[in-house]
């Protein structure tokens, strides 16, 4: 019996497409670096204004031991502060969500504080607690706390009326309702706040170091700029970008593990 052969897309085709998806952004970044290098050389831009990528790379390698040492300082401040902000922010969001009293007292205060550029507290904290590790943590906690708490309130108040009625009709107590329905339902919105905070975390740590410190990438970049060493400054900037991406990757990983049912039907964003 004659059969019509339908050409099947081979697996190689699929693999090529996946590779292409990774290759495109890498090629784009490489093109920008090449153009950057070319422009600096062509127009003879002085090093103290903008160094070429090759000079930045040289400094990155030469100063790597110090950059790495300071990355660990800034990274620790970022992650510890971020962790504490989650630890305080999520339960606080829950408390405000379930307590009408807190919603009338604490919530307006929190919204007002959210409007203040919180980094202004950095010099205050440093004058109170000195140049060490602790005031940096406090600044990071402060800049991360609000997005986490405010999204937490939203997360814990947006359960649909019908779902709440279903819970009531089962006769389940508040604890069981919380762990079986409310908490899992709140996770996606909680992660919106946690992701916003992740972006703030490195900013908070770096600027706090900038304002008063004797270690960390924020301290180092201030020194480098003070000596017109833009090549070192840019090497630090690239390291900070890597640190920021690392923190964001951690959050994405946690999201994948905790709410696979939610992430599974999202369009890939290229991150995580």
């Amino acid at each position, binding site marked *: 019996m004659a059969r019509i052969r339908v050409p099947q897309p081979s697996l190689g085709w699929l693999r090529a497409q996946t590779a292409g998806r990774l290759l495109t952004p890498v090629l784009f970044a490489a093109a920008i670096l090449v153009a950057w290098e070319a422009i600096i050389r062509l127009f003879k831009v002085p090093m103290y204004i903008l160094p070429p990528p090759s000079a930045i790379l040289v400094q990155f390698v030469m100063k790597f031991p110090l950059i790495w040492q300071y990355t660990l300082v800034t990274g620790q401040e970022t992650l510890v502060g971020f962790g504490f902000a989650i630890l305080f922010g999520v339960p606080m969001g829950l408390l405000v969500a379930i307590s009408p009293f807190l919603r009338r007292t604490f919530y307006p205060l929190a919204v007002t504080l959210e409007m203040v550029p919180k980094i202004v507290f950095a010099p205050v904290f440093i004058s109170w607690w000195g140049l060490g590790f602790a005031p940096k943590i406090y600044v990071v906690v402060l800049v991360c706390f609000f997005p986490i708490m405010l999204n937490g309130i939203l997360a814990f108040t947006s359960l649909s009326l*019908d779902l709440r009625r279903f*819970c009531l009709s089962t006769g389940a107590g508040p604890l069981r309702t919380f762990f079986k329905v409310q908490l899992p339902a709140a996770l996606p919105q909680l992660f919106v706040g946690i992701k916003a905070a992740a972006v703030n975390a490195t900013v908070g740590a770096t600027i706090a170091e900038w304002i008063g410190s004797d270690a960390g990438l924020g301290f180092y970049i201030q020194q480098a700029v003070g000596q017109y060493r833009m090549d070192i400054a840019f090497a630090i900037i690239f390291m900070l970008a890597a640190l920021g991406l690392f923190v964001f990757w951690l959050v994405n990983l946690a999201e994948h593990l905790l709410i696979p049912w939610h992430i599974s039907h999202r369009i890939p964003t290229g991150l995580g």
Partner: protein
Amino acid sequence: MTESVSIRGAEKTYQSKHGPVPALGPLDLEIEPGRFVSLVGPSGCGKSTLLLMIAGLLERSLGDISVAGLPVNRPLTNVGIVFQGNVLVDWRDVLGNIMLQIEMRGLKRQDYTQRAHELIASVGLTPFTHRHPHELSGGMQQRTAFCRALIHDPPLILMDEPLGALDAMTREQLRGDLEALWLAKRKTVIFVTHSIEEAVQLSDEVVVISPRPGKIVRRVEVDLPRPRTLAVRQSAEFQELVGDIKQIFLGYGVL
């Protein structure tokens, strides 16, 4: 086991800026155990309000409601409810969503797993047992919601326009599924709908409710053979019942 529902002088009035707005009643209704009773009325007549009041999920302004002889003063728990909206949770598959009913009640999962699989099979969802809601069609989601309302074998089942959000063909399929599920156990069912055909097809009795404030204007016995096959639905008796009820709504100017 199955339960009776008794409604005496029930009323619902909402407070608004312009004073009290009567939404429903006063109305009286006795529902005998094991009957499938539909509440039919135009949008806003308060039929869903009445259902929520029977479930103890909405306070009544006046009157008494009792289920199995006991007054309803708090959310009823010996009940299975199918809500208007989709109340499946995204993070659980079909089986998990059905078992949520069991877990929320603190019952043992293993005692109900067998029954859950039987229910899933009875609505043709076996291949989708481990699919999550976003992988299901609207009809499949609603079938899952039926199973969740039935898994704990409640003596009373309340359904609030469960087929309202579905397309015409899926609706038709689900009516058949619903009748089959009911015929297997014959629990008391109160079914809210604004589709007259649907009410006549499924019910032993259709309670016709007037536009706001909703009052009972007619109680129509549907004494047709079950299951209500296409032949039954095309019969003169069926069409006559549908026509009679339509006539009532025409009188109110809502059709």
